[in-house]
């Protein structure tokens, strides 16, 4: 049996006296698409912040590819092969789309502190930036100022930036929030396409997306996972119905 690429063991986080994450254990397989659902305030975004190094857990263990990443900085975790997007669009709004992508791509080419070579002269960076733009179908928008694009285009850009470091694990935090039906359908197929061969952990409210995208689904309620399983298992799970899905799926 293959080892999980990302595993959480009894992860806990509290802010003051308020416990937000109360012992979460989860494992993500190398080419699995795993969705996390749960009511508002269940701690889904906090869980992402813990995994990506934005905040530190109070206790518990996070293993990425068998190595502990607890206490590492976001940039170190990114370099170990885990990339994330944000619930609120997090791009470089006043730079062009191409510049956004290029900033994301440069890192993987070791061009952090380089001030003795021209960035335009690096063919590999240019090639990879172009490929990513093609992949998310933003090529015609390359010269547009990122902040002036439509919301769904900005979300596509963010997905492309998340992919730029060629990560093994991708965390997407509500990529479809605020999208229309058509945009959601398009982004769902886009995510399916671009995450092939990688592990994906996704938080999403749109149930259609969750059930079509996820190989497995975990349900987070008040900081604890009450169920993990295939979409069918989750649909049939009585606890889940009661705690979260309610009438929506029963009907």
């Amino acid at each position, binding site marked *: 049996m293959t080892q999980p690429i990302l595993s959480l063991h009894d992860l806990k986080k509290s802010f003051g006296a308020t416990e937000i994450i109360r012992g979460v254990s989860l494992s993500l397989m190398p080419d699995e698409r795993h969705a996390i659902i749960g009511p508002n305030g269940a701690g889904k975004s906090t869980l992402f912040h813990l995994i990506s190094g*934005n905040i530190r857990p109070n206790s518990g263990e996070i293993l990425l590819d068998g190595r502990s990443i607890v206490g590492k*900085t976001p940039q170190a975790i*990114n370099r170990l092969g885990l990339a994330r997007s944000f619930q609120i669009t*997090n791009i*470089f709004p*006043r*730079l062009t789309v191409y510049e956004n992508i290029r900033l994301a791509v440069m890192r993987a080419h070791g061009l952090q502190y*380089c001030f003795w*070579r021209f960035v335009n002269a690096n063919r590999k960076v240019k090639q990879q930036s172009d490929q990513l733009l093609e992949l998310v179908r933003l090529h015609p928008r390359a010269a547009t100022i990122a902040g002036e694009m439509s919301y769904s285009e900005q979300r596509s850009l963010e997905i492309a930036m998340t992919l730029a470091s060629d990560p093994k694990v991708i965390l997407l935090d509500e990529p479809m929030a605020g999208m229309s039906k058509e945009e959601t359908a398009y982004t769902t197929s886009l995510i399916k396409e671009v995450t092939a061969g990688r592990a994906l952990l996704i938080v999403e409210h749109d149930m259609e997306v969750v059930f079509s995208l996820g190989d497995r689904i975990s349900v987070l309620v008040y900081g604890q996972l009450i169920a993990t399983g295939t979409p069918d298992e989750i649909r049939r799970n009585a606890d889940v119905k009661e705690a979260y899905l309610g009438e929506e799926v029963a009907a």
Partner: protein
Amino acid sequence: MKARFFWIAIGLASLAAVPFVLSQGLVNAAIPMLIAALFACAYNLLCGQAGMLSFGHSAYFGVGAFSTIHAMNALGGAGLLPTPLMPLAGAAGGLVFGAIAGWFATQRSGTYFAMITLAIAELIHALAPHLKGVFGGEAGLSSMRMPAWGFTFGTTNEVYYLTLVWVALCLALLYLITRTPLGRLALGVRENSHRLSFLGYEVHRINVLIFAISGMFSGVAGALQVVSNEAANYVVFDPSLSAAVVLNTYIGGVNVFLGPALGAALMTFFGYAVSDLTQSWLLYQGLLFVLVMMFMPTGLSGLAVLAIAAAKRHGIRAVAPAAALYLAAFASLTAAIVFLAELLGRVFSQDYKALSQAAGSGELPPVLLFGWSWSPAGMLTWLVPLALMVLGIVCWRTAGGSLRRQADAAVSNTVAAAVTAERRPA
């Protein structure tokens, strides 16, 4: 691209021609203009491009200056380096001190960053007069430019050319840095440094590096000032120098690469030309800054970009009347303000108080201004600035109206063209 090289060549050629065309006094004034231009561009790498608003940049200028004076006095006055290479000592000083100070300052961002830079500059400014060995106490240190490479460096023209070569070289390097990965990352730091760290970048190291490079070029500017003055004292750490570079940079405009250089050169010349004429020149400088920030936050270079864009869209002929009207409005409003400021300045001065007391109670003797005498109680004295102000406002309004009509006409033209194009097939 070719056009750009053409303009750069023209600019360099005219700067090189300065000593042949202008008087020695003006060549002397051009040296601090060049130095201020380099300082502002070095500052803009940090402030405009990387979005880190430093309020203490005189520290790096000053450290560069003192590194240079020590290098000039080293080896019994023979100098550590030949005179033309002296700015390298300033560069080294600015780089090292910039890296150390930057490491602390960039631990925080925004207001806290600004406060730390301010504190570091104040620290040095307060310390310098007490460290006699390093900064020469209140009197400062002095030195001599040694002849080198067949030049005596004894004339203003030679110093001018030395400064020009260094400033042009440093500006070219600063421009090239914007084309490198680090230069692009500086923009990323300004826009969203949080996102950069989630893309795997060590943001603090990038910040320190940018800070140190900015400090290095500021140090070169300080060095050039020392080479030109053959002296330095702790006044180079003065907060007013830190403030001036911020004002110059914003007046010039942070979004265009040479904007800060333009602003700094203009304001330095303004100080040189106007400070002889009037005591209120700092008032005018402050007014200019406030007006630029209020009405054109992109600075003078931003205004130029706008004007060129408008001229390209509507044609020069269509825009020229509006531009002329704006210039007229600016001129008359400036005249009104200057007249009022100077008049009030005279009337409320100590000299005038003494004069009016001498003339007897209730008497208001006339004030000599611009070659005429104006009575403070006279109607005409107040009508002139009022008329100028009204004229200015009328010109301004007319110019705005003319531009709006142009824009409307452009829109209706496009619509008309579209309609004709649609009809044609039928």
